[in-house]
């Protein structure tokens, strides 16, 4: 016999996911609609781009200072120093950004592996 509670239990997570997706969809929909009203080279477009640049960097720096999940298992200085090493090396070799990235990742990995051994 068809069991309504099992059906409900199976669908509930997907319904919750649908509700969560609406929270994001609203912003994307608004962004798409409003993008038709903006000229690419206008002052407003430049401002929107600058806001997106500032926001993305803010989010990335926030991950370093206030991480969640596995990154939160490491100490602040263990994340911050390699991050700064990567950024500073990039500023010296800005034509080859991969050098900064690799240096930062190596510095971070070394700290983590060192802590594992200790």
């Amino acid at each position, binding site marked *: 016999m068809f069991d309504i509670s099992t059906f409900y239990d199976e669908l509930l*997570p*997907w319904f*919750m*996911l*649908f*509700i*969560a*997706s609406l*929270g*994001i*969809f609203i912003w*994307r*929909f*608004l*962004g*798409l609609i409003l*993008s038709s009203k*903006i000229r*690419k080279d206008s*002052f407003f477009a*430049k*401002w*929107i*781009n*600058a*806001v*997106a*640049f*500032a*926001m*993305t*960097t*803010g*989010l*990335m*720096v*926030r*991950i*370093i*200072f206030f991480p*969640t*999940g*596995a*990154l939160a*298992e*490491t100490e602040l200085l263990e*994340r911050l120093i*390699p*991050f700064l090493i*990567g*950024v500073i090396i*990039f*500023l010296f070799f800005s034509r080859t*950004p991969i050098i*900064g*990235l690799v240096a*930062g990742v190596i510095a*971070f*990995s070394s700290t*983590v592996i060192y802590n594992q051994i200790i």
Partner: protein
Amino acid sequence: MKKRDSAFKKGILTGFGFPGIGMSAAMFGYGVFAGEAGLDLFLCLGALLILWSMPGMVIFVSLYTIGTPILLLFSTVLLANMRQFFLVLSGMTIINIHSHKISFVSKLLWAHLISPTGWAELTKAKDELEEKELLSFFKGLTLALVTITSFTTVLGYKLFFLLPADIVSIPIFIMPLYLTILMLRAVEIYYRVAVISGGIICPLLFPYIGDWSLIIAGLLGGTIGLFTSYLVQKRKK
């Protein structure tokens, strides 16, 4: 047509390069997190593709697993994802999506697939490709990003109980460093000032106002950047 094909290929190659590695490393962490929280694998993968936003996914997993009421789940995801508005607005303007003869549903799909990584690569590609090639580039980039992140999410989900958290943190570290470096590559002075301001303001405000710090850092940083550029230009004159 050939140009568009090569832009598409360039997008795929870019996606499977460092941007893909950085983003998939973060998604690997998400897979671990979802596995740890006891989420079903299909739901974990479904959340990746349907939400396509790291904060949205993390909030969904965290709140769903503790049985949060629907309204709270919706409002938390809504407030934490306002940045999507700016990313989509900026990304769709860069692509000039409305100049392409595609259906509104297709436009919505591409707007949905804008991520900080995808958007950052678009800002870089706009200086290297013609405007009409950018959509093809973005399609290729997105295809690669969706493929590689789906794979690493499943990998993270399956491996969560095998790897120590410290080791898992190594790939996760790549994304913030990679995107910060990418942002610092901006040539225009207002973008550079915006990047530095946003990077300083957000962590300073976060302990006090939580996710709002991101919105305020963006609005303030972007405005400071443009204002600085205005002052510099005025001085030159």
